[in-house]
């Protein structure tokens, strides 16, 4: 296992009744790195994300998150570690009884409640951070609205704001662009790339859109011009931070760069590339 890595999966296996959801999965993630995960429905992509923060217990192998072995940890021991990672759910996973502002504020006050006032931040500074996070996803104007009053794409963006408001070193994205129109999907992927490059956070992205992987591998956020710029130089280390993973029946059947994936002859791997 790599030193200083954020996440280490070592021969992880997990099964639901008689079906293997994960089979001997090995994976390492360092700060600033991105893994884009492709796979058919039921191939174990979402289970992999959930296993990262212990939402589903693994049957075999070892999962190390932020250097700590979470494999045998109890649910109550995991809460502290989980609050250091951000997760964006497929449908946003927003609490529909809370306003957008309260949803984004939730992780901040959750930490405060857990700390029982030790070093807790003031409401003013929390609101400032919430507004910053919402500004980051260009949704500050929805602060007082409820999730039911905004569109599906907006809900995903609020989900991203909620995941990053505590500035976690690891963000997990479960199909952030599924079911969205191409323009909204590109907006969301641009935000994810921006989040990665502005704060050097590690990202695990589950998606079925090859363009999402292309964008993460081929673009970087140019803070000077406040826009995405292509990674043009050959051998630019920023281009190599993104690796592609293809999963099949719980196993990783491909791991490599975008170029390696595009050169792959495997019929299953080719299914997830652009229609040619």
């Amino acid at each position, binding site marked *: 296992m790599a030193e200083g890595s954020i996440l280490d999966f070592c021969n992880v296996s997990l099964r639901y009744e008689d079906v293997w959801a994960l089979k001997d999965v090995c994976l390492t993630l360092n700060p600033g790195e991105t893994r884009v995960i492709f796979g058919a429905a039921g191939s174990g992509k979402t289970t992999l994300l*959930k296993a990262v*923060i212990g*939402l589903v217990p693994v049957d075999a192998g070892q999962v190390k998150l932020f250097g700590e072995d979470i494999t045998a940890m109890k*649910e*109550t021991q995991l*809460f*502290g*570690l*989980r*609050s250091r*990672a951000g*997760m964006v*759910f*497929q*449908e946003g*996973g*927003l*609490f*529909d009884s809370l306003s957008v502002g309260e949803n984004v504020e*939730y*992780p901040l006050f*959750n*930490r405060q*409640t*857990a700390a*029982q006032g030790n070093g807790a931040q003031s409401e003013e500074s929390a609101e400032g951070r919430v507004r910053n996070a919402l500004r980051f996803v260009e949704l500050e104007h929805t602060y007082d609205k409820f999730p039911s009053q905004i569109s599906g794409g907006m809900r995903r963006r609020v989900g991203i704001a*909620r995941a990053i408001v505590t500035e976690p070193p690891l963000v997990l994205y479960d199909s952030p662009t599924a079911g969205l129109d191409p323009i909204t999907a590109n907006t969301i992927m641009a935000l994810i790339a921006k989040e990665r490059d502005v704060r050097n956070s590690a990202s695990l992205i589950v998606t079925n859109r090859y363009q999402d992987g292309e964008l993460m591998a081929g673009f970087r956020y140019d803070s000077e011009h406040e826009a995405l710029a292509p990674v043009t130089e050959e051998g630019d280390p920023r281009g190599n931070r993104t690796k592609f993973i293809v999963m099949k029946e719980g196993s990783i059947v491909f791991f490599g760069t975008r170029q390696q994936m595009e050169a792959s002859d495997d019929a299953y791997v080719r299914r997830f590339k652009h229609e040619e």
Partner: protein
Amino acid sequence: MLRLLNAWIGPFQEFLFLAGRAFKNIVRSPHYYDDVFIQMDVIGVGSLVIVVLTGFFSGAIIALQMARALNTYGASSQVGTIVSLTLVRELGPVLTALLVAGRNASGIASELGSMKVTEQIDAMRALGTDPVQKLVTPRLTATAIMLPALTVIADAVGSVGAYLVSVPLLHIIASSQYWSSFWRALVLNDLAQGLIKPLIFGMIISLIGCFYGLQTTGGTQGVGRATTQAVVSASIWIFVVTFLIDKIFVNL
């Protein structure tokens, strides 16, 4: 047979595990007091109107039926005693619990079930919050506090309902005689039964609602199924537990 037994024991074991965690969280930090007060408002104040109406008419109906039956034996003066014992020992706690089960076990199961199928429970866990601490314990505490209070209100309103039927409507007993026989009939054992039952029913209703809500799978259809199961199970357990408590108190 073994599979059938397993299908029943497995969920019961999980229910006990959930109940254990919920009770343990009452004394464990963090405490979500705001959620407790919100639930007390939803469960207690929200159920007040139906509890008052049901309590009133239960008392009135008992008085009507008993007046006729007691008149046969020339014992109409005992109506206050009969109403008092029936309401405080049994009908008050059981009817109130059944109403609250119908209204709140279903409400809790559907709310938590919807949260489960829309990944809000997973999101809560992912954000580092214990859903049992945040969702189950406040509902358990709120229902355990509010159901005895609602039962006392139902008993009080029921006694007024019976009074109105017995005294101004049927003129079978004098006002002072009704109230004195009503109070004299009650002993500590009856009051203890009348308060211990709703306390336990409150715990059962909230825990069953939460359990079925958190077990929900299969989208909106699953939410409907969880809601029905919660109301049916809570109602059955109310009768089973009232029988067990009666058995204990009768032997005292």
